[in-house]
């Protein structure tokens, strides 16, 4: 009889008995508590450690964040509900107690509901670990000083209970009902594994799609976990709400909860209706019983044919083959293997197929590098799970099927049994490693993209993925042999893996030599292949493979065969097995492991230096303490710079000699200069031909992981003393020699500047002077090291020192530049200036560039790569011809015309509007890293930025063209006018360039296209504005990119519309003329720019300047209704009700309505659109007029000719509006 069951036949009693039994059972089970502990710790640590980066003024445990984290966690807890709910029914089948249930008077209802509710209660209890974790985390965080006390919200139970009951419990209910139903239906727990993995991936993939759904109602509804729904709702929160408001169940969010709870209930009741004991316990169909088989009595004297056994040398090979084949058959015929693999492949195909656009909603070509990057990031853990799961299955197969009793008494030796298991499982890593290539090439072929880089696929799949998968297999194999219990083995392997992963991803101690299977980091590049370096990857792979070999050897010694009574018995057996061959193998592996380990250690911590998180922080503190005294040192100006540099891409090495003519333009003599050669291998400096005495001012204590280095780690910060102080007005000649090369292996990322193909570097110069950016930023860390409060941003606009410095570089003034660069024979080297001469010498390419008239600000990068060059040119209206050279990766030819058009139109517009382009050439270069950048006479675009984008529709935003125009504009706004080193001056290079690009774009594509783009820009600005929680300055003092770039573009574009393009351009030209090529302070700030603009703006529009520059202003304009009635003659009278509002935000993110509003606002009415000859949609403007409107509602009657379709207030989005979407609505016809 079963414990805890009595013979009462009433439902109520049976239910309570079963319910109680279930609870007792769960309380005794270890996994219940492990799950609880796991989530509790994860949440506690999560809350204690990581304040949401970059968000101020918000509590780390505000109700909105709690709701977000809780819903996110339930997607993982799905797996827990799977394990618990499936166990609740399946264990009766597993332990064969079902016959008792069939004969006992247990009621169906009592059994079903007792089991469900009993188990579900525990799922909820495990779910409650989230509450306790969310309570404990912030508390511990504050106690340990990881969180400031002001970062934690005041305690209210409702902040935790509301998200728990509104989100966690319903989510767990749905998944519990699904898994309970699944097991009741299919009577098998492995379907749970498969189901959970499919659901998990399905959900991950759906998330991907959800982000692209324009109709947000669907996002609210279709997410079973309400994770995205909550995020969406929170995204509309005001800063105040972010801080303290619960994410209430209302509107579509409530509907979501109702729908999904109902789905759970439906599944549960459906299961209940179908549930029957006999079906559940006996299976769907009766297995054929062998009682009715025909018995034919055969003559038994018929002899068994002689087949004598032969165990000579020919025995082992076919036997190992047969054992391996049998094991493979077992794996491959497993339906779950097929399902999981298929699900994985489908996930990969889908994810590669739908890899979203990189920028501006335009799809990118299905490039190998992008796919591999995505794959490496998202699918590797699937590999681990598959390897873990099926290794467990394979190793425990004999025990689980009870074939062990026969198998273990068969003649093959232990080594053969063990080895053939291993051989069969080796197929998994091989298969899994080739998968990305098969899927990737398949998708690329299907999409008609011919550039699949087989060599890149192969080097990743076989060089990186295969060793990693092998290492994982070896690890998992050894763990399973050692633990010798399937579930415990899975748990231990997962836990160890998780800890390793945490170690690698944390910043505290991520030393890869101690984290099994981890290697230095890598990325994929079209131009550069696997970057930055592959050599460490090989040596780390060897190191870990040797380690894995040792694990396997240990496994082979402990491999259980027969009945093992105790671990002691296994140890005894292991000692017996540790014979000469095992010892020999062990010695070879150990030597290999130690030798590769020693080599890697030598490279990482002797040649290179690994610093722990703590050491990095301490060094930053030391840097500031000891070198801050140099922050105010006078710096010499460079007036002439001659660079001789040799680039050796294959060796990752450069050698530089540079001659500088310097002059002291300050009022004080210069005795010393501080140089930072952190990115150089070595450097030396001579002054007027004499070696300059050097002081090593900053000597770090030896790194903890480098005990064999000298105790004092001489940093590359040096103070050079002038033989004779450089008096004001004095000139000197400095000669620098420097080399750059890789210093051993980096633990994570090696530097990206010198690559095999795609070098971009500063010429090999040390940095000049004290750099505030190297200081510790975290206020709490600063307090711990006794450092004073730090100014977080640039100095204020009026700061005298700031005005004397330039934003771009701390070398003030103009310099003439000349460079002779050599590179390998297959590469082209580029530097700013005109190409004076190019020649070949000694098998290397040499280039001589000169940039002397005009002189330029000190920003002269050097680039070298295997380029193909497209040469084009443009003749400007004044007859000047400018050459346009596009240096690109040979495969990337699709969008070259867009880039060159951008150059041509930009040169025409800017030289007309702002003044001459000072050079005879523009170079546009593709680079491996970076997004986009520019330098005198050129600009760079990263390989992800447009080169391979697939433009398919004429309405798509041509960001190649736009970005080119944008970067080109910096030839005026960054390299002619130098912004100063104060708040807001970032607006000059970025904002003015953006304005210029918008105007170029408008001329080419029309106002409609600019409007579409501006709408996206405005949404981007609003998103960032919302996320900043008041950590935003008005434009004139802007410190954020989204203000000085995006918002400035919006405001300047709006301003030209109000005051006239010519008038604004005239103001800008005057500003440029006032500051261009200024060789001495003061340099231009945003106040100066505004001053020039203000002069040209009429009084009636001055309020716009105040709102735009002086405040953070948000309009809240919308059309309430638009009704049109025909009045004959094809004319309509349109009655409009519009509402106008304007709000100002203060520095804490609070909004206040503006007191007096009487602003210019456009009102427009539009007919049916059309398409132009290039297929672009065109707006049919029936009416557009500028009004001056006060705040509040306005009713307008407008007569138009033609059918009105839509009407809008500020329809072109020139004013920054809180809700840009409600500015236009469709007209209803009466």
């Amino acid at each position: 009889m079963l414990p805890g069951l009595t013979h009462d036949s009433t439902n109520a009693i049976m239910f309570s008995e079963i319910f109680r039994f279930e609870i007792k059972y769960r309380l005794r089970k270890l996994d219940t508590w492990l799950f609880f502990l796991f989530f509790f710790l994860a949440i506690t640590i999560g809350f204690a450690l990581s304040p949401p980066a970059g968000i101020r003024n918000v509590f780390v445990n505000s109700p909105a964040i709690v709701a977000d984290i809780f819903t996110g966690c339930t997607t993982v807890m799905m797996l827990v509900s799977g394990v618990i709910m499936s166990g609740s029914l399946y264990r009766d089948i597993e332990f064969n107690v079902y016959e008792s249930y069939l004969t006992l008077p247990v009621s169906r209802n009592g059994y079903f509901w007792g089991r469900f509710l009993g188990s579900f209660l525990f799922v909820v209890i495990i779910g409650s670990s989230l509450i306790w974790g969310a309570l404990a985390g912030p508390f511990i965080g504050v106690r340990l000083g990881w969180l400031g006390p002001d970062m934690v919200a005041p305690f209210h139970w409702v902040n935790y209970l509301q998200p728990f009951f509104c989100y966690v419990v319903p989510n767990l209910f749905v998944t519990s009902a699904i898994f309970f139903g699944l097991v009741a239906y299919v009577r098998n727990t492995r379907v749970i594994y498969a189901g959970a993995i499919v659901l998990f991936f399905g959900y991950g993939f759906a998330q991907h799609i959800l982000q692209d759904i324009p109709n947000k109602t669907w996002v609210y509804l279709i997410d079973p976990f309400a994770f995205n729904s909550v995020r969406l709702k929170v995204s509309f929160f005001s800063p105040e709400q972010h801080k303290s408001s619960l994410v209430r169940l209302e509107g579509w969010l409530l509907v979501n909860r109702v729908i999904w709870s109902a789905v759970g209930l439906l599944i549960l009741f459906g299961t209940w209706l179908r549930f029957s004991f006999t079906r559940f316990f006996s299976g769907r169909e009766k297995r054929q019983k062998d009682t009715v088989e025909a018995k034919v009595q055969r003559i038994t004297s018929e002899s068994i044919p002689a087949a004598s056994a032969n165990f000579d040398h020919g025995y082992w090979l076919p036997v190992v083959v047969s054992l391996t084949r049998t094991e493979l058959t077992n794996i491959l015929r497993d339906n779950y293997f097929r399902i999981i693999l298929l699900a994985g492949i489908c996930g990969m195909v889908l994810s590669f197929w739908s890899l979203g656009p990189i920028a501006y909603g335009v799809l990118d070509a299905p490039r190998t590098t992008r796919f591999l990057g995505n794959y490496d990031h998202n699918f590797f853990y699937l590999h681990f799970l598959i390897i873990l799961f099926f290794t467990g299955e394979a190793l425990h197969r004999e025990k689980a099927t009870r074939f062990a009793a026969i198998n273990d008494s068969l003649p093959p030796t232990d080594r053969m049994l063990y080895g053939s298991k291993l051989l069969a499982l080796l197929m998994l890593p091989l298969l899994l490693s080739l998968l990305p290539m098969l899927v990737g090439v398949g998708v690329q072929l299907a999409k008609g993209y011919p550039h699949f880089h087989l060599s890149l696929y192969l080097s990743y799949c076989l060089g990186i993925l295969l060793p990693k998968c092998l290492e994982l297999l070896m690890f998992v194999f050894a763990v399973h042999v050692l633990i010798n219990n399937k579930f415990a083995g899975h748990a231990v392997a997962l836990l160890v893996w998780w800890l390793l992963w945490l170690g690698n991803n944390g910043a505290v101690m991520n030393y890869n030599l101690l984290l099994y299977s981890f290697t230095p980091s890598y990325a994929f590049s079209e131009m550069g292949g696997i970057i930055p370096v592959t050599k460490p990857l090989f040596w780390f792979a060897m190191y870990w493979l040797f380690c894995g070999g040792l694990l396997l050897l240990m496994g082979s010694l402990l491999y259980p065969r027969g009945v093992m009574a105790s671990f002691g018995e296994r140890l005894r057996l292991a000692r017996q097995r540790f014979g000469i061959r095992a010892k020999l193998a062990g010695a070879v592996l150990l030597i290999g492991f130690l030798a590769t380990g020693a080599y890697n250690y030598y490279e990482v911590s002797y040649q290179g230096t690994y610093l722990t998180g703590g050491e990095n922080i301490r060094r930053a503190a030391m840097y500031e303490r000891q070198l801050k005294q140099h922050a105010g040192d006078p710096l010499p100006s460079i007036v002439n710079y001659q660079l001789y540099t040799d680039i050796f891409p294959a060796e990752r090495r450069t050698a530089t000699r540079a001659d500088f003519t310097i002059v002291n333009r300050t009022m004080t003599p210069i005795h010393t200069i501080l140089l930072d050669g952190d990115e150089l291998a070595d450097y030396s400096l001579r002054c007027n031909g004499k070696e300059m005495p050097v002081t090593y001012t900053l000597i770090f204590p030896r790194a903890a992981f480098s005990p064999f280095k000298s105790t004092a780690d001489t940093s590359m910060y040096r103070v050079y003393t002038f033989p004779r102080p450089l008096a004001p007005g004095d000139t000197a000649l400095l000669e620098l020699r420097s080399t750059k090369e890789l210093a051993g292996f980096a633990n994570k990322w090696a530097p990206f500047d010198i690559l095999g193909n795609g070098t971009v570097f500063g010429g090999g110069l040390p940095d000049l002077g004290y750099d505030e950016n190297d200081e510790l930023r975290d206020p709490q860390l600063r307090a711990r090291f006794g450092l004073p409060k730090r100014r977080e941003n640039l100095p204020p606009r009026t700061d005298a020192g700031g005005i004397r410095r330039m934003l771009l570089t701390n070398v003030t003034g103009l310099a003439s530049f000349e460079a002779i660069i050599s590179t390998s024979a297959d590469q082209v080297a580029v530097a700013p200036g005109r190409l004076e001469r190019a020649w070949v010498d000694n098998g290397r390419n040499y280039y001589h560039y000169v940039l002397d008239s005009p002189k330029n600000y000190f920003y002269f990068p050097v680039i070298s790569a295997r380029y193909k060059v497209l040469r084009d040119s443009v003749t400007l209206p004044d007859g000047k011809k400018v050459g346009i050279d596009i240096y690109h990766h040979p495969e990337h030819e699709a969008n070259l015309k867009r880039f060159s058009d951008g150059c041509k139109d930009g040169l025409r517009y800017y030289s007309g509007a702002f003044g001459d382009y000072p050079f005879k050439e523009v170079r546009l270069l593709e680079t491996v890293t970076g997004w986009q950048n520019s330098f005198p006479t050129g600009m760079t675009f990263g390989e992800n930025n447009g080169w391979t984008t697939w433009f398919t529709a004429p309405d798509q935003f041509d960001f190649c063209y736009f970005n080119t125009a944008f970067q080109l504009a910096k030839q005026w706004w960054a390299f002619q006018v130098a912004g100063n080193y104060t708040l807001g001056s970032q607006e000059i290079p970025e904002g003015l360039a953006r304005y210029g690009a918008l105007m170029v774009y408008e001329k080419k594509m029309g106002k409609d296209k600019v409007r579409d783009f501006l709408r996206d820009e405005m949404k981007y600005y609003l998103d960032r504005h919302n996320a900043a929680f008041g950590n935003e300055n008005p434009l004139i003092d802007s410190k954020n990119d989204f203000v000085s770039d995006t918002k400035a573009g919006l405001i300047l574009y709006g301003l030209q519309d109000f005051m006239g393009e010519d008038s604004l351009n005239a103001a800008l030209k005057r500003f440029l003329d006032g500051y261009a090529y200024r060789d001495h302070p003061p340099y231009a700030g945003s106040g100066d720019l505004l001053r020039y603009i203000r002069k040209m703006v009429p009084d009636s529009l001055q309020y716009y300047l105040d709102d735009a520059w002086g405040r953070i202003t948000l309009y809240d304009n919308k059309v309430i209704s638009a009704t049109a009635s025909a009045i004959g003659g094809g004319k309509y009278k349109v009655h409009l009700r519009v509402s106008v509002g304007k709000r100002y935000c203060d520095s804490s993110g609070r909004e206040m309505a503006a007191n007096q509003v009487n602003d210019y606002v456009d009102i427009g009415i539009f007919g049916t659109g059309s398409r132009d000859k290039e297929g672009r949609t065109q707006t049919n403007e029936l009416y557009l007029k500028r009004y001056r409107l006060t705040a509040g509602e306005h009713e307008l009657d407008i007569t138009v000719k033609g059918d009105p379709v839509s009407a809008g207030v500020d329809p072109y989005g020139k004013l920054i509006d809180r809700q840009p979407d409600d500015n236009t609505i469709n007209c209803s016809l009466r």
Partner: protein
Amino acid sequence: MQLVINSLSKTYPNGVRALKNVSFVCHKGMFGLLGPNGAGKSTLMRTIATLQDADQGTISLDGLDVLKEKTALRRLLGYLPQEFGVYPRTTAEEMLDHIARLKGVNDAAKRRDLVATLLEHVNLTRDKKKRLGGFSGGMKQRFGIAQALIGEPKLIIVDEPTAGLDPAERNRFYNLLSRIGENTIVILSTHIVEDVSTLCSQFAIICDGEVMYLGEPDAAVMELTGKIYTKLIGRESLARYKQQHRVLSTHLKSGVLYIRIFSETAPGDGFIPGQASLEDVYFKAIGEQVDVAGINS
């Protein structure tokens, strides 16, 4: 050819002493191993089959140290465990072929021939392409028998082999086993006394890990002939009879109780002489360890 088991002992970590100083010798032919559940039979058989180590003692097969040279013994062994399973996703034919390979039958043609004959012998020819996961208990048992016979084993160990077989199959299997036993040592573990008496030339009775009796079935019965008496008694008086006599077994039928007792001399008291059987030998042997004559157990 002989298998010598010499003072074999085994104690499990939980303190259960599964084997206590077990010694006996098996020759060519069938050797029966009788004993109640939990007597240590399976432990003994697993130990002989190299699946388990003993704490003390030795086993040798024609001078081969079984406990040390496991691989050598495995090459001579045919083993049918009491409880075993199969790979559910392979077919009977594939699996037998596989095992034949492992047992050193390298020649493909011979192996094919062997597998076909074995399948025929155990009446699985029709099901040879079926996956083993779909096999019933009886079919699986017959598969187990087939695999134990592969490779001309010199030592065959079969643990409760007829479980799940119907009488005809059982008969057929025993005939097969007897024939094989002419040239090999067959150790048959069973709790069916009759099987031992009809098949085995030698047998041992094991109880609580100890050998209680060792000998030949006929001789064992002869020893008891004339010393077995039976009587019909009331249920309530069993306790009294148990005090006075060596009660071997009881048999309750339609409310009345037959008892069998062992006595060197005629006990009188209404007892009549009974025909001695191997069952009496068994009950007499294990009766010293367990109460076999109770009616409530």
